């Protein structure tokens, strides 16, 4: 046994030390890292509608601080299986389709446009989304018939000159019709196809630049991707003269663009928005199914007005921006507010506050008609820096 003493010593040392390290890392991570919503006001039943992704970092840095919130439960990414984590994408609808129809989704971009109905699943995207190629003027559509699992694939040529470079900006799927908003040569156009045709092809629906004017672009939300379930396309006029319009991408930061028109894919109508008297800090258009709302943000409040088909605005519903109790000076509310969306007559908003140099995140839910606060709560513990990257509303 004596002759094995050195080997045994080093073996034992390695096992003890590395085992101790593993245990201490496990303990360090579990310290005060349990996330939950703290209700400050209202009923937390409205949290059922939320799917949240973000990051929670604390005094102990761990390899992957990302988390998700769903069905009232916070889960750290590192606690999920590696394979599930690898395959997961941000959009919960696409995730659901990927899980249930794995072979249909294979070969299709996870950032593509998917629409699921009771009978079919439709995918639409530009052909070069799956593999970049220098010039690709084609669009791909794929339809899965749920009844018999048959798949129909279509590749459609854009009816533009070969020398032009096209960029797909948005898609609206209203099966069997599919609408593509495309930017090429400084022109924003809408093309459509009917998949019930014998040989579907793309035809020009509307040249938005000709109809509305130049200097227009699309806005995007920081919080969630444009969904192919949205019937309306928000178009804005470029306000920031420093922003270069001469780029292939016609989608701009919301701060550079002020909404001016709304295009209705289904009717082809262009709704003019007269916002000349609107002196708010920030304006956005929110869509819920077939309803349109104009959100105007002010210093301590924001208002919601329903937009009718002629661009007329209803009486504003005023909503107070809630103040997080963790702020150094609650009378100075310098938090960031952003609207998540509307569901079942309720407006969901996200609040990010920065007390003592850290980041706190909270959710506010208001009744759309009365503005009444239905729920206000924040993610705790406050000692963690909680940054929310995306929020979706459950279908």
């Amino acid at each position, binding site marked *: 046994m004596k002759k*094995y003493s050195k080997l045994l010593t080093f*073996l034992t040392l390695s096992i003890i030390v*590395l085992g101790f*390290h593993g245990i201490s890392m496990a303990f360090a991570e579990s310290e005060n890292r349990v996330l939950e919503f703290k209700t400050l006001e209202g009923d937390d039943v409205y949290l059922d509608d939320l799917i949240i992704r973000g990051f929670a970092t604390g005094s102990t840095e761990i390899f992957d601080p990302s988390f998700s919130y769903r069905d009232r439960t916070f889960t750290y990414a590192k606690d999920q299986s590696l*394979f599930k984590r*690898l395959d997961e994408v941000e959009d919960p609808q696409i995730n659901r389709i990927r899980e249930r129809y794995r072979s249909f989704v*294979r070969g299709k971009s996870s950032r593509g446009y998917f629409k699921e109905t009771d009978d079919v699943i439709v995918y639409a995207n530009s052909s070069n989304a*799956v593999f970049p190629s220098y010039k690709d003027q084609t669009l791909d559509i794929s339809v899965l018939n749920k009844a018999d699992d048959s798949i129909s694939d279509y590749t459609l040529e854009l009816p533009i000159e070969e020398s032009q470079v096209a960029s797909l900006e948005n898609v609206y799927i209203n099966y069997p019709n599919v609408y593509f908003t495309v930017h090429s040569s400084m022109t924003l156009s809408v093309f459509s196809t009917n998949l019930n045709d014998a040989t579907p092809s793309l035809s020009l629906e509307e040249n938005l630049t000709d109809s509305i004017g130049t200097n227009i672009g699309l806005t995007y939300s920081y919080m969630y991707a444009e969904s192919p379930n949205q019937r309306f396309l928000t178009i804005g006029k470029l306000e920031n003269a420093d922003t270069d319009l001469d780029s292939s991408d016609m989608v701009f930061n919301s701060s550079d663009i002020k909404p001016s028109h709304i295009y209705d894919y289904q009717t082809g109508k262009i709704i003019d928005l007269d916002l000349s008297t609107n002196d708010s800090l920030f304006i956005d258009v929110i869509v819920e199914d077939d309803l349109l709302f104009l959100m105007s943000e002010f210093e301590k409040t924001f208002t919601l007005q329903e937009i009718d088909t002629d661009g007329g605005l209803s009486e504003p519903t005023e909503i107070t921006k809630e103040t997080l109790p963790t702020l150094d000076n609650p009378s100075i509310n310098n938090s960031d507010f952003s609207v998540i969306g509307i569901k079942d007559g309720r407006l969901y908003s996200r609040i990010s506050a920065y007390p003592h140099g850290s980041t706190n995140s909270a959710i506010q839910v208001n009744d759309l008609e009365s503005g009444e606060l239905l729920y206000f709560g924040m993610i705790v513990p406050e000692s963690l820096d909680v940054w929310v990257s995306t929020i979706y509303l459950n279908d």
Partner: protein
Amino acid sequence: MKKQLIHFIRLVNFEFERMIKFLFGIIAIVIVSNLIGSIIVPLSYMSEARETMSLESLNVTQFLEMYPSFSISTVTNSLWIYGPLALGISGFLFYSIYIWYREWLGKNTFVYRLLMLPIPRIFIFFSKLFTVFIGIFSLLSIQYVMIRLFYFISPSLVSSDLYKQVDVSEVISSHRAFAFLFPESFGLFAGLYSIGLVFLLVLFTGILLERSFRITGFIYGIVYAVISLVLIVLPSFIPTIFKNQYILYPSEILLLIIAAAIIVSVVSIFLSKYLLEKKITV
């Protein structure tokens, strides 16, 4: 079975005894360098801090607004830690090759005696592999103990106003090298060190090819290593080959890489077994 296990342990112990001087040497360098670093780095920080505060007429609060405070991470990110770490890694890389070639050095080639032992020859292969791993883990253990030791040395050399308490787990997680050497989870640990295992298996097989066929064997070894590498990374190129980034799900690519690594490992072991039994020349 029990007898064979005893033979294997004896062989591992024998290889370990031969490695012990090298291991002690590396460990001594790590300990000395780390100790010096744990003293010099905080003293140097304090000296620079005082000089800066004096030159720019700053009090401690003002200094901390403009410059970072001292923490154990300051020590671990210095050359006194990185240097011996790099030396240890390159040392073990060298030893992984030397552990074979030493058998053929000198007048009385030791490999003859090794190959004549009444044990399966593949035990020689595994005992060397096991010995290298024990050496690596021993070195890592010493490094980890030194990190813990820093908490007793460095803080006493720095003013409490300028010292920021940082947990060991954060020091390790935020360190470029330690984050990989001391992974935060067992899964990551197994994954990273499995890559090291596959690397060693391919390296050992390449060495045995060279020892079996000399100059031609050297070329065979290089080719074998290249083929092994290509096979393992090939799944990540399938999307490029098929011109579709989504032809495989990320989990499927990972599974294919793991499968390829297992195939390479198994082939390496069986090829090495064949070379040791039939082809190795003394």
